[in-house]
Structure formats: C-alpha cells, structure tokens
C-alpha cells in the first residue's frame, strides 16, 4: 500500500470475536481529531450501525470467477469431473458455485469449450460521510470469498480519503480471527490495538494475534474489556502481555452502556461521556494516540 509518511493507521483487532472492537472504535471516532474511519470487517460490518454513514460513492467489487457448464455444448465426457479437485461438478454436469474454487482447470481442458468462466460480483465498497468524519466501508456478499482483497481495497479507499483531505489518521475496525481478512487488515499498519476480555478463551486468542502482529512486525498494544468479570484473569493477561513486550493501554469495566449506546445508534462517548467506561476508554485513547 502506497502511503504518505505522515498518515498513521491504527487497526483494532481481537482474535476472539465479540470483545468490543466496534464499540471501542466508535468511541475513538468520537475522541480523535482529523481522521478517516475504515470498517475492514467486511464479512460482518457493524460500524455503520453506530455511525449511520451517508453513502456518497458506491463501487461494485468483482473478483474471481465461477465455472458454468453450457449444457448445449457439453458432451458429458467427464474430463472436468476427473480434474476438479474441489468436487464442484455433479454427475449431471452442473457446477456447484459454493464448491467451485474458480481455478479454471475445467475451463482450460474442456475439449468442447463448453465451460464459461464469468467474473463474480462478491460485494460492494462505499465511501461515506459520517458525523465523526469520512468513512470507507464495504459489504462482502453472503457466502462469498475474496474477503482479503475487499479488505485491502477498503483500506486503500480510506488512505485515498486521508490523502485527499489532508487527514493524518485512519482508524480501522478489523475482523475477528487470524487468517486472510485479518492479515489483509493489518499489513502495513502503524499499530494494532488488541481488545481482549478476561477469559481463558480471550487470553488464548490474544496470544495468537500477538504472535501474528510480531510475525508481521507491527507494533501491538492491548486493552482489556469487561475486566471486572474476572480481575484475576485480567492480571494474568496483563502480565503475559508485558512479558511479550506488548504495552497494556488500560482496562474497561463491564458496563451495560455499551449495549444501550448501540441501541441508540450512538458511541459510548456520545451516550454518556462521564460514565466509568467512557472515562476508561478516553484514557486508553490518549495512551494509544501518544504511541502512534
């Protein structure tokens, strides 16, 4: 990704889902100045539910191909079924688009030229205005693949927005997990903030994303949400993180305000900036900002 040296990008990730990435990013959107927002969780994009973007630009996302057998040309010789490693062609010579990997091997070898290979429309990309600043976001089609490519394109749009408007910060909401879309989300980032929770699962999943950030040599920070649900586990996680050289940015208490704000389509800062959770998030943001 081509980036101006002065544009910084923070990605919020977690490994484990449901630890509060999007609510936290929404709160940062209320606190940070001069920024572009980016939702890179294209598989289950939720940031728009809080920020209610006014869509200004739409772009169809096309990537990859699916094989389609033309029954008028097909002689049912069976070569395609023999070559397909993805069991995508039925005994009636119909391609299952779910199983089709888009490798084109059947298309290439079909002696009758009976297999078409149209490009797939996998999703849509948006550039929007929100009350907290411009935003790049996307929607991956249901049951589609190529999420990594869409993530990369969405981040690219966010970067273009930052350049065009001379904004120095991109705040990106990342996906859960560890593989393709996560790797596409964090590649080349200035830093990642890992949001975890004080559970054995949260700990286990954080360990793996810390390793991932190290693998790609991206500075990582950690914060613990709902810390008071298990203070002992919170301490264990903090010790582990410091041991791994990952600075701990703070703790956020369990607070129903997260759900209440979400229901009202507000960030927790907008909903109640004096709540304990909002105060904790403000401190975390100040610490993160000073380290970017």
């Amino acid at each position, binding site marked *: 990704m081509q980036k101006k040296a002065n544009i910084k990008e923070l990605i919020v990730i977690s490994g484990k889902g449901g630890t509060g990435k999007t609510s936290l990013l929404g709160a940062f959107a209320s606190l940070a100045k001069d920024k572009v927002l980016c939702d890179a969780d294209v598989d*289950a994009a939720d940031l728009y539910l809080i920020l209610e973007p006014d869509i200004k630009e739409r772009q169809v996302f096309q990537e990859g191909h699916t094989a389609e057998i033309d029954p008028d040309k097909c002689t049912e010789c069976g070569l395609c079924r023999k070559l397909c490693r993805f069991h995508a062609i039925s005994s009636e010579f119909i391609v299952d688009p*779910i199983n089709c*990997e888009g490798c*084109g091997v059947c298309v290439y070898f079909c002696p009758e030229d009976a297999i078409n290979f149209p490009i797939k429309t996998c999703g849509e990309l948006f550039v929007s205005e929100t009350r907290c600043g411009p935003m790049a976001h996307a929607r991956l089609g249901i*049951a589609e693949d190529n999420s990594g490519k869409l993530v990369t394109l969405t981040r690219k749009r966010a970067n273009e927005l930052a350049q065009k408007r001379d904004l120095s910060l991109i705040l990106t909401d990342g996906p859960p*997990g560890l593989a393709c879309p996560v*790797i596409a989300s964090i590649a080349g980032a200035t830093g990642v903030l890992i949001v975890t929770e004080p559970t054995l699962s949260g700990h286990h999943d954080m360990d*793996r994303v810390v*390793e991932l950030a190290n693998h790609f040599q991206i500075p990582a920070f950690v914060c613990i949400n709902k810390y008071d649900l298990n203070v002992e586990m919170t301490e264990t996680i903090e010790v582990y993180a410091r041991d791994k050289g990952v600075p701990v940015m703070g703790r956020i208490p369990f607070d129903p305000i997260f*759900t209440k704000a979400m229901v009202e389509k507000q960030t927790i800062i907008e909903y109640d900036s004096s709540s304990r959770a909002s105060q904790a998030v403000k401190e975390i943001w100040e610490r993160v900002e000073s380290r970017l």
Partner: protein
Amino acid sequence: MIISIASGKGGTGKTTIATNLAVALGSDVNLLDCDVEEPNDHIFIQPKITRTEKVSLKVPQVDMNKCSLCGKCQEICQFQAIVVVGKTTLTFPELCHSCGGCMEVCPENAITEIDREMGIFEAGTSNGVTFAYGRLFVGQVMAVPVIERVRAAVQPNKVNIIDAPPGTSCPVISSVKDTDFLILVTEPTPFGLNDLKLAVGMVKILNIPHGIVINRSDLGDDKVMEYANEENIPILMEIPFDRQIAETYSKGKLLVKELPEWKERFIHLYEDVVKYAKKS
C-alpha cells in the same frame, strides 16, 4: 446427525453452546471445533489428545532441468502462484489453492507436488465425547484446508456437533455445509441482529434447517425476537446475562458441570433440534 453452530457476529456464545451441548449429551457425541483460526473448545473440555497430524496442502515444485519456460503454468493459474521470470519458473506457495492445473498442463512433466504445512489437526476424547480440532499456523492465510481436515473427522453413527468460526464467508461455509441442522447463536443487540440476518441469508443459500439461541437475552432490545417471529425461525433457547455464567465461562469451565440445572436445558435443546430437523 450433524448439528452445526454458527453466528455471523463473533463472541455470541458458539463455543458455550457447542461444548455444553456435547458434554450434556455425554455418550455417542463427536465434537468438532472448526474455528481453526481461534479454536477454544479444547479449553473447556480438556481432551486427552490421542492423535496429532500436520495438515498440509499440495503445492507445485518445478524441476528446472525439465522446464522449457513455455509459460503454460502461469497462463492456467488463476492465483498468480506460478510465474516465469527470465530463465526460471517461480512458485508462490502461499498463493496456491492446490488445484493441480499447472501440473496437468505442463507439457514437459516438470511439475510435481510437495506438501506445504499449514496447521495441526488433533483428536482425542473427554468425558466420553470424541473430539477433534484444527489449529492454523500463525501467519497462514488460508483456513479452509485445515477446516476440511476437521470436517473429515465426522463420525456417521454419532451426534456430530460442529463449532464454526464467526462470519458468513468461506471458512464458515466449509464448516457448516452439508449439515442437518444449524444453530445460530446471537445476542439481542443491533450488531447481533445485523449479523444474524447475514447468517440467515447464508443458511438459506445452503438450505439448512435452522433455529436461534439468544445469549445475554436480557441485555438489549426486542428486535431479534421480532425478526425471528417475522421470519418464522424457532427460538431454541434463551440464556440471560448472569455474572455466575460469565465467571464460569471466563475460567474455562462448563455450565453443565458447574451449574447442573443447565444440563437438562441443553438436553432439551438437543431434543428440539432433532424435532425441528425432522420437520423440515
């Protein structure tokens, strides 16, 4: 029978449902954790692992003594995983989908396949339940080959319970396709509802009978309930927010063991699943 558990949104309680359902039923159950990016089931059921295998993908290796640099491999590859550069043919194993096209097309028979390791598959037992899971190596992009290895551990004569990753894209599809019933776990919040709708869209494409479990059912609003009624999707179970449940989970313990009243509820859940699976 194969029951899969998915959610759209992460962190709604898939692992809680999968592990507690498996242990509540006890015998003749096979639990498969297909969330190979962030597997958690093993934390709760503490299996005794009896088998460990590497999971690998076949990727091309070019014998440059035979290669004539014709470029046919590059032409057939849809993933830019093999290219001819100057006087050599380079492969990019991390981009390879293992379709075998390059090997098939090569006129010189210069391409063979070698194994590229992507993760680990482990199987074992716990509390009379057989268990298997996969673990993708950190830094690997493709989760599906490891998921498929776990799916291959389905045992036809048992109740198979599959814990899927969050989302609605390829890793979820490979985890839940060709299953008999899908339990969608959600929470009654705007994010929960949004992602539930995506998951229902996926289940409809895959044509799998399904029902909903609402977790932390008292934190949020009524919109998930309204949606389920409109769509005529059965609500199979509601789990209220309860500090005791949250603490049990945080310590990696099972509800059906720590809070015994839950055992009966999970057995009921299974009976409902069987009933709804038969209906459709």
